[in-house]
């Protein structure tokens, strides 16, 4: 009985970790872009959705071209490379174009206006994606199918892809940590979050740093979409769902804090996973309850020092 209860939790923990991974990739980008560039981009989550759509096309193309010639492991490696390199690259290009044309004029505005303007951008992006990929759900299950599944204690089957995605996200998290703590660009980014004026005074091209941080941020979101899609499907209506989750990470974790994004993603992932298992009635509400609770106890978020 006790053993059964414990084995029951294993898939829930794995579900929670994978959900947390996607949320971390989504929320960190939003958090650093807001924290360091002071740009509150509601449309950030749409880059995850766009990443997922592009990933589905990339996967389909790769399977179409290499599907018959490469073995299972060869195809899997190509697919993963496609998801980790081609997808972020395409999103970075799209994102840069949008930065130059749409976002740049918004930077100077107050937060409220930025929110309104970028909300409009979400609608634009949603329609654009609907135009390209149609209103029907798209999938890209090949990477997950190639990887297969394992049997957990207690006999249930569990797909390997979410586990793979979780490990990959941990690696990305470590790389990010190293980036902020150890590299020059990381330090400049931290400095810009604190005082971008003085960074300019020391002769650093702040605009270039700004672009680099922005690209890192949306690339992370795109990676979130690329890791998400093999285990799920994407429809354009989901963008708003991700917008809410991205802001939940931001509010719960605290603005501009990597540690906060990690903690918030895990917290939401576990609450969501266990909550929707044990109290399914609260599946939607649970994230909001969590947000409200954190804001009551610590309005700056778990690790933030800026008031949300």
């Amino acid at each position, binding site marked *: 009985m006790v053993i059964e209860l414990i084995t029951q939790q294993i898939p829930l923990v794995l579900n929670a970790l994978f959900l947390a991974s996607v949320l971390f990739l989504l929320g960190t980008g939003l958090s650093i872009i807001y924290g360091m560039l002071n740009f509150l981009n509601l449309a950030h989550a749409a880059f995850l959705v766009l990443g997922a759509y592009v990933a589905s096309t990339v996967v389909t193309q790769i399977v179409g071209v290499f599907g018959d010639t490469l073995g299972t492991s060869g195809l899997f490696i190509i697919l993963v490379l496609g998801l980790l390199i081609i997808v972020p690259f395409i999103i970075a290009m799209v994102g840069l174009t949008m930065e130059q044309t749409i976002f740049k004029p918004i930077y100077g505005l107050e937060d409220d206006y930025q929110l309104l303007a970028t909300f409009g951008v979400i609608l634009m992006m949603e329609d654009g994606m609907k135009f390209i990929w149609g209103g029907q759900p798209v999938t890209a299950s090949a990477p997950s199918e190639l990887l297969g599944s394992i049997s957990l204690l207690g006999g249930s089957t569990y797909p390997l892809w979410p586990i793979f995605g979780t490990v990959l996200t941990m690696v990305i998290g470590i790389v990010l940590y190293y980036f902020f703590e150890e590299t020059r660009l990381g330090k400049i980014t931290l400095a810009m979050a604190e005082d971008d004026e003085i960074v300019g*005074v020391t*002769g650093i091209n702040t605009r270039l740093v700004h672009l680099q941080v922005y690209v890192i941020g949306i690339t992370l979101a795109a990676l979130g979409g690329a890791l998400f899609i093999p285990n799920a499907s994407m429809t354009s209506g989901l963008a708003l769902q991700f917008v809410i989750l991205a802001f939940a990470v931001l509010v719960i974790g605290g603005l501009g804090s990597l540690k906060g994004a990690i903690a918030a993603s895990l917290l939401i992932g576990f609450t969501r996973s266990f909550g929707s298992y044990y109290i399914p009635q609260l599946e939607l509400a649970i994230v909001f309850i969590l947000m409200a609770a954190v804001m009551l106890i610590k309005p700056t978020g778990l690790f933030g020092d800026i008031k949300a």
Partner: protein
Amino acid sequence: MLLTLENVRARIEGVPVLREVDLSVGTAESVAIVGRNGAGKTSTFRTVMGLRDLDQGTVTFSGENITDSSTPNRKRLGIGFAPEDRQLISKLTARENIEMSLWGSDDELEVDFDERLEMALEIFPMMSEFLDRAAGKLSGGQQQMVAVSRALVSKPDLVLLDEPFEGLAPSIKKDLRKSISIIRNELGASLFIAESQLSHVKGVVDRLYVIERGEIIAEIDDPATVESNDELMRMVSGG
């Protein structure tokens, strides 16, 4: 002239802060701009750095019109700036705060930071004790040393020091005065210091401007002869 401001006017939220500023700083010259708080000293410096939008006027540096050039560009042309409230990055160490000044330069690879830091340490020997401490944890005097060092290590042609003595203990002020003299005498850079206290810059600068309500109201070629702020005020008010 190394730096020239001509007919500069600027407003903040509609209120004029610089009404008509004309001034210049020569090569290897030390100049002060003296005035009360709010008279326009900081606005003048921010204008030099490109941090203030101008209504009109021209800023020329090394013979080049830099009125429309960006702040990082001005730094790269050779202007080092230690702002009034120091503006150190609290999360980075003192060393990193100083080094940041080299990160944006074009010839970065050829510059040896350790050598430059050595130069800064000759001016502020005490700094060696706290180089690896986070800047947010330093005392006001220590922060000032870091801020001035940051402005110096890229070997600029012109160094702007905005109220460097403010908030410092008297003994530290004395040290800083000595350090500024070293900068002036040994680095060959032009110095432009904003001050509210004449005594701080007396004997350090070759020339001074008096600014009042955003206007240069006097230029004094021989500051050594002026006794005190009071006398200065009497002089400029024609009393």
